[in-house]
């Protein structure tokens, strides 16, 4: 049934890519109008930054940036600049917005991958265990913890972790990404960063860990009642092997889709985690931009983050097709 569409994967790929680009374009347009709705415009903001705010100067700035043109023309200019990766200049930081964001991106991606890994692996291990002992003590304990983690404000967990593990026990540093006084290089540097990353990664992982535990548990319970599992048991295959080799493979597919839709959540959560732990990433930049009232930088972060989510979802879609051969390409 799917052979016809699978033999032409390029059409599928092209469609998805076109949709992704359209989505990014739509997000950019939404952003443009959000910025237009803000009281005051870029010229006033810049004049305020420069400290000289005579009406003539502001009018001159407006003409210079095309702010005296009709809105649709301005939109066109905005999109044209966006196409060349020009998101404007932050007077607060004295740097291009794009440069600012890309400088902070590696720290955020590193933290995000670590917390994603913790959430997915933890979700699988605890979810499978809960399903294996369904409605017995281990399942009830795991489900209770998942319920609690889901209801706890993530930034608050971060603060409590700092209190316990940094302040009281002294095991981990309280904030930052590196020990600024140590000037570590090579392996020492890697270990140092990892040491700093433990608490923020856990903080960011907990909420999603709760979701993934429930998801894997439910998926496993569905699969475990199927005939092939009974056959596997009858053949005398060990319970762990049935769980992780036979059942999990079928139960883990929905997880991939959910992880894809959670990427935006991870980025949003980064604002909180990075602020709590002074992690020098995009989230922390957003917090600073908010405090500095740098609207343009705020919107640039939002556009690029959304674009990032669109692109990674594209990859997730493709991965899904590769992993699950029964999926039809549309």
């Amino acid at each position: 049934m799917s052979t016809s569409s699978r033999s032409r994967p390029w059409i599928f790929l092209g469609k998805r890519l076109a949709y992704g680009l359209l989505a990014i374009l739509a997000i950019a347009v939404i952003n443009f109008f959000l910025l237009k709705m803000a009281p005051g415009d870029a010229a006033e903001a810049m004049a305020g930054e420069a400290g000289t705010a005579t009406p003539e100067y502001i009018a001159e700035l407006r003409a210079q940036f095309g702010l005296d043109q009709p809105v649709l023309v301005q939109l066109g200019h905005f999109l044209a600049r966006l196409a060349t990766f020009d998101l404007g200049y932050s007077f607060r930081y004295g740097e291009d917005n794009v440069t600012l964001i890309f400088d902070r991106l590696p720290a955020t991606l590193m933290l995000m991958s670590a917390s994603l890994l913790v959430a997915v692996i933890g979700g699988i291990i605890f979810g499978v265990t809960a399903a294996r002992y369904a409605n017995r003590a281990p399942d009830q304990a795991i489900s209770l913890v998942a319920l609690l983690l889901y209801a706890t404000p993530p930034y608050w967990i971060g603060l409590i972790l700092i209190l316990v593990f940094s302040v009281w026990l002294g095991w981990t540093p309280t904030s930052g990404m590196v020990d600024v006084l140590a000037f570590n290089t090579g392996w020492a540097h890697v270990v140092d960063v990892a040491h700093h990353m433990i608490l923020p990664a856990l903080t960011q992982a907990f909420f999603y860990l709760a979701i993934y535990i429930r998801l894997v548990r439910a998926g496993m319970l569905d699969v475990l009642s199927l005939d092939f599992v009974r056959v596997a048991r009858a053949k005398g295959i060990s319970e762990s092997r049935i769980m992780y080799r036979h059942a999990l493979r079928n139960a883990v597919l929905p997880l991939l889709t959910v992880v894809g839709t959670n990427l935006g959540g991870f980025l949003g959560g980064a604002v909180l985690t990075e602020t709590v732990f002074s992690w020098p990433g995009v989230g922390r930049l957003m917090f600073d931009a908010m405090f500095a009232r740098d609207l343009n930088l705020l919107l640039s972060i939002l556009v690029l983050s959304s674009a990032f989510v669109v692109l990674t979802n594209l990859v997730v879609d493709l991965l899904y097709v590769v992993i699950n051969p029964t999926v039809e390409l549309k």
Partner: protein
Amino acid sequence: MMRAFLTSAARNWPVSLGAILLLVILFMALTAGIFFPEGPYVSVGRPLQWPGDLAGAPMGTDALGRNMAAGIFYGARISLLVGFASVAVALIFGIVVGAYAGYYGGWIDNLLMRATELFQTIPQFMLAIVVVAIFGPTIKVIVFALAVVSWPAIARLVRGEFMVIRERAYIQGCIVLGMKDTRIIFTQILPNALSGVMVMSTVLVATAILMESALSFLGFGDPNVITWGSMIGSGRNNMRDAWYIITIPGLCLLITALALNLVGNGLTDLMNPRLRKRKVK
């Protein structure tokens, strides 16, 4: 029917626990003005008094000597208000979008659902921050911002329900009778689609309350009110010595969100007989 519902609700203790906890929080919100007529801002004693040290301040005082208990009671108001109001706004928008998409299908569905997906793609918390940055940090704007990030989930759920119910025979009957589309959507289909939406709403209220607290924690909340999030935010500076300042409001948030989730999960079980059966097995 009602009696059977109530007995099963009593047997289903998590729902009852959640409902009781919610009532306690609601009681705090309603009686804040009675117990603390002076409001949450006045200094009632020396700063940083631990819970129990000062009579009249059972939860201690913060770094400015303000009564923590008063902050908790008044904070309950903001949390509940923002949580329920934002989800109410999101419900209106989400239901309309989902209903029209699910009922009409075709290009209307396509367009509305692409727009919905778009809003789900944008990192929610970042979008909320940007909305607050643009329109200013007031309770109204925060309610609006949280509604903007909450409606897509509702729209998708409503659409799914509508697509199923639309095909039922009684709806075909309504069409044959010449009933107007709007009337079919809102008086014939919607009442049957609402149960799932209500369950989802309780969980969304919990998420909205946590998100509001996060905005306040970062200092992006309404500066004219005390909220649990802003109490945690200002308590950060005294975290080492006076950790009760961050712990108490955090526990309140945890309890509120937990209560809403318990009620939501329990309602799912009650309303879905198939799930109940699986549990027995």
